[in-house]
């Protein structure tokens, strides 16, 4: 009956839906309510998850760059201020103590010219030689800068 409308030759078979045959079990499952609702829910979930990820990413970016600009320089500067205060306390306690002995013990300097001094928070490499010790002290008293102060206080600390 379907082939009557054709002129002959090869032709594709008719589609199932055009005939009035009963839909089989797979079609029933596919078209049922539960499955379609589940599909809708899954696509909604994917959509919402994508949006959430995007907005979380945006928020994280904004929070991160704002923290970088507002808080990181503050932390760095407060740390430097703490170091400066510690340095001054050290110097005060050293200068308040009885005057330092005459010559530094040779054992500290004969091994190598470079001394590695470790402070609580920083470590600095100081190069010194015994006959230059006095020079360093004089330099500090006339032109105090943080770098030089560091050197002297570490040396005195070592003594």
């Amino acid at each position: 009956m379907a082939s009557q409308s054709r002129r002959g030759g090869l032709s594709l078979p008719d589609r199932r839906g055009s005939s009035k045959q009963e839909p089989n079990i797979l079609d029933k499952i596919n078209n049922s309510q539960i499955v379609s609702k589940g599909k809708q829910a899954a696509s909604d979930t994917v959509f919402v998850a994508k949006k959430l990820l995007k907005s979380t990413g945006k928020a994280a970016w904004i929070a991160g760059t704002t923290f970088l600009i507002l808080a990181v320089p503050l932390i760095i500067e407060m740390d430097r201020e703490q170091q400066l205060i510690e340095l001054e306390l050290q110097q005060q306690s050293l200068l308040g103590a009885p005057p330092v002995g005459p010559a530094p013990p040779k054992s500290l300097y004969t091994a190598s010219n470079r001394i590695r001094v470790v402070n609580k928070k920083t470590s600095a490499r100081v190069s010194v030689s015994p006959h230059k010790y006095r020079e360093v002290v004089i330099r500090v008293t006339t032109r105090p800068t943080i770098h030089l102060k560091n050197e002297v206080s570490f040396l005195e600390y070592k003594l």
Partner: protein
Amino acid sequence: MAGFVPPGTTLLGNEATSEAAKKIDEVHKKADYLNLPCPIPYEELHREALMSLKPEYFEGMRFDFTKGLNQKFSLSHSVMMGPMEIPSQSSEAIKIPTAHYEFGANFIDHKTMLIGRVLTDGRVNARVKCDLTDDLALKANAQLTNEPHMSHVILNFDYKGKDYRSQLQLGNGALFGASYIQSVTPHMSLGAEVFWAGQHRKSGVGYAGRYETDKMVAAGQVASTGLMALSYVQKVSEKVSLATDFMYNYLSKDVTASVGYDYALRQARLRGKIDSNGCTSAFLEERLNMGLNFVLSAELDHKKKDYKFGFGLTVG
């Protein structure tokens, strides 16, 4: 000052007497309405908040060199290279890289201050501050430019009374302004201003109030041009102060609020601010050496996606 203990007292009763002296001074201070302190000038009403929240952000590189020739006279050289923003109608900001050099001379005396600047893009600035007598001061500000109708000059006459200040302002383009501010209590001062701009056919009235104590300053200002500004600065410690600012234009319904901090440490000064327009900015001045300052400025506008960073060096 309150709490001053005369140097004859013995150690035993020292604390008790200083506490008593403080209390008596406070009571006396409350009742003394005839000896109020002189208020700050009207244009400096929001001074603390402006200092903390509005440093001079810049973009690009900046180098300033000030050389003192004398005790009173100094020359300054300044180079600035960076993108300049051209105001455009579209949402995208148009930035054009420019560079200019500025030469300036300053003469600072105990009575007079003269400052002049000339820039390579043709602008000349001059500022004069002169104490004519003990109470009367003259300030003048002038700017000449290449572009027509952009040059202006403003003259201010300030009279300082015992507990009030008044100012008369004259400008080119028929600009007249007057302001008056008076201390009403030892902590509070109120003021008002009027101005009339002939060229733009505008006139306005404004009122302002300021309340300050040792630890905080609150200031408010309303003007008939639609501006309402409130600011509050709290001094949390001697190094740290927090400031907030609220600006509302009731004619154009424009609102901006900002919160910021100001850390004045010994080797550095750091100011950070966050805005309700989604703008975060920070300004750091660090003392590298004696007379050598390193300046960093950052401004992030998350709404417009406009990021500006600048660095500079200030010598002298």
